[in-house]
């Protein structure tokens, strides 16, 4: 291209524009001659910001997980040790990890089941105005305030709230009570049970599942489904052998969000749920009241490691093309 010619062949001056005047002009000429300079100038601020503030703090945190806390004085001992990681495997802490991971898994599966019909309808049947409506219909809950959503569920699940009222109106109070009587998932009321925690998680992360599944389904050509039907497959068979495998990368992509967000959340189980801790709450408690930063740091490594494996597996399934 013409980029280099003014520099290398100054003798042909008349055919070429003279250097531009003013400091903006000369600066701009230098950018043109030396694109690397512009690139470095553009990249320096964001890389410095993210590198120093974000990565810097992240590494400082991870480094602290290799320190330990003196059990008598409560002071942090600055010697490298794996003792803090060992503490993660105490029964109480292991319980927290297992509880959080199972909740994340159940929420992910449920979100996939609820999201699929919405995504399928939006991708295959909704047209024009309906398409836009579905898009906004998913986008609004995705972006509206997280705390307000949790608060809405506190209202819904309260003992005197709307859900109890609906069950009473339908003469199904016995069903609700039977459900709450089940150990582990039940409790005094829905708002202090794992069922409640699960519902709120499902609600809050659902849009994150709908969008990638819809994106994956948009790419399934309608002719595949017709061909499958023409060749004699029942709708169920078409779903199992054609639609589901093609939508799977989208589901896996969505599950990255639902799984990761559930793993790290500490506000929902604190507001709606039993008093037993999740990983996020454990981190919060360890760094706050307990003042045990090394253990808190070691706890944060758990979701990072789990998500690392998860992302590795998701990548192998081609989930990143679906985001």
């Amino acid at each position, binding site marked *: 291209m013409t980029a280099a010619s003014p520099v290398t062949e100054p003798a042909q001056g008349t055919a070429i524009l003279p250097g531009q005047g003013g400091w903006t002009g000369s600066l701009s000429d230098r950018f043109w001659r030396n694109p690397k300079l512009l690139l470095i100038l553009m990249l320096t*601020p964001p890389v410095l910001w*993210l590198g120093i*503030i974000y990565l810097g703090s992240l590494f400082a945190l991870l480094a602290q997980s290799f320190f330990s806390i003196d059990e008598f004085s409560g002071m942090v001992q600055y010697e490298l040790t794996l003792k803090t990681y060992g503490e993660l495997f105490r029964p109480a802490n292991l319980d927290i990890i297992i509880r959080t991971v199972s909740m994340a898994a159940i929420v992910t599966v449920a979100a996939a089941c609820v999201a699929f019909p919405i995504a399928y309808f*939006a991708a295959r*049947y909704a047209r024009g105005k309906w398409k836009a409506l579905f898009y906004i219909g998913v*986008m609004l809950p995705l972006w509206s305030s997280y*705390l307000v959503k949790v608060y*809405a569920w506190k209202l819904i699940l309260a003992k005197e709230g709307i859900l109890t009222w609906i069950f009473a109106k339908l003469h199904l109070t016995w069903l609700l009570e039977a459900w709450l009587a089940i150990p582990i998932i039940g409790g005094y009321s829905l708002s202090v049970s794992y069922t409640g925690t699960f519902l709120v998680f499902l609600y809050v992360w659902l849009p994150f599942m709908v969008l990638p599944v819809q994106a994956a389904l948009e790419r399934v050509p309608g002719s595949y489904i017709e061909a499958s039907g023409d060749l004699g497959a029942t709708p169920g068979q078409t779903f199992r052998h054609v639609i589901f495998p093609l939508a799977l990368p989208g589901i896996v992509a969505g599950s990255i969000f639902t799984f990761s967000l559930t793993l790290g959340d500490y506000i929902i189980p604190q*507001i709606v749920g039993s008093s037993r801790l999740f990983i996020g709450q454990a981190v919060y408690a360890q760094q706050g009241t307990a003042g045990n930063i090394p253990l808190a740091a070691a706890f944060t490594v758990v*979701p990072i490691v789990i998500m690392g494996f998860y992302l590795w597996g998701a990548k192998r399934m081609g989930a990143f093309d679906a985001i």
Partner: protein
Amino acid sequence: MRSDGKQSAPFALKAAAGLGLAFMHLPIALIFVYAFTTEDKSYQWPPPGFTLKWLEVTWNRPDVWDALKLSLQVATISTVIAMVLGTLCAAAVSRTKFFGRETISLLVILPIALPGIITGIALRSAFSIADIPFSIWTIILGHATFCVVVVYNNAVARFRRTSGSLVEASMDLGANSFQTFRHVILPNIGTALLAGGMLAFALSFDEVIVTTFTAGQQSTLPIWMLEELVRPRQRPVTNVVAMVVVLVTVLPILAAYYLTRDGDQVAGSGK
């Protein structure tokens, strides 16, 4: 028969999709009902009566106003920082291929891909190591960091669609880099930046997880709400605040959607 793609959906699918959408929207609608209930001691349903009293009570609450003011300040400054950093990064990544380009994208996305609690506690421990006292700027540091990604995503998508020959044409016609930026690049990416900025604003205005770690004793509006959620003291005021928050966040989202709807489909990606 089946080939024109206009057949209507099976009833079961329609019902499941409709129920799913209702599940996503009814809880938020409920907030609007509760904001006007006369009941102030419990979350009783159905509301025993309706009143406008709580709007006035909330209006006269200085703590709510202070929290709102802090939230708006934080969101505005974080958005401006995120727009500058995100645009620079997007321009660099989409214009040129260079070594480490993938790493840069990863670096931008990481603050939002890792759970917020990790960002939060990392920043907090860094502040305490460096002896930085909590202030509005510690909140902004955290917010701007994870807001960069939404501006970046919107800007990258638009840069990809903007033809590089436009820039070359502008330069060939004698404009310098700054004039090209002002008159060619900016009008092209303007709406994407605006959309990204609005989403960044909504994200920051609503953020609570990182903020609990970086705010110290200060209270942004979400922090104020969180305290009310954990220990409810003034349910009616909380109801009204929740309603206002819904209204304040919905408007930028709708605006961002209309700004980017022409095929970008980026408004929500990457939250």
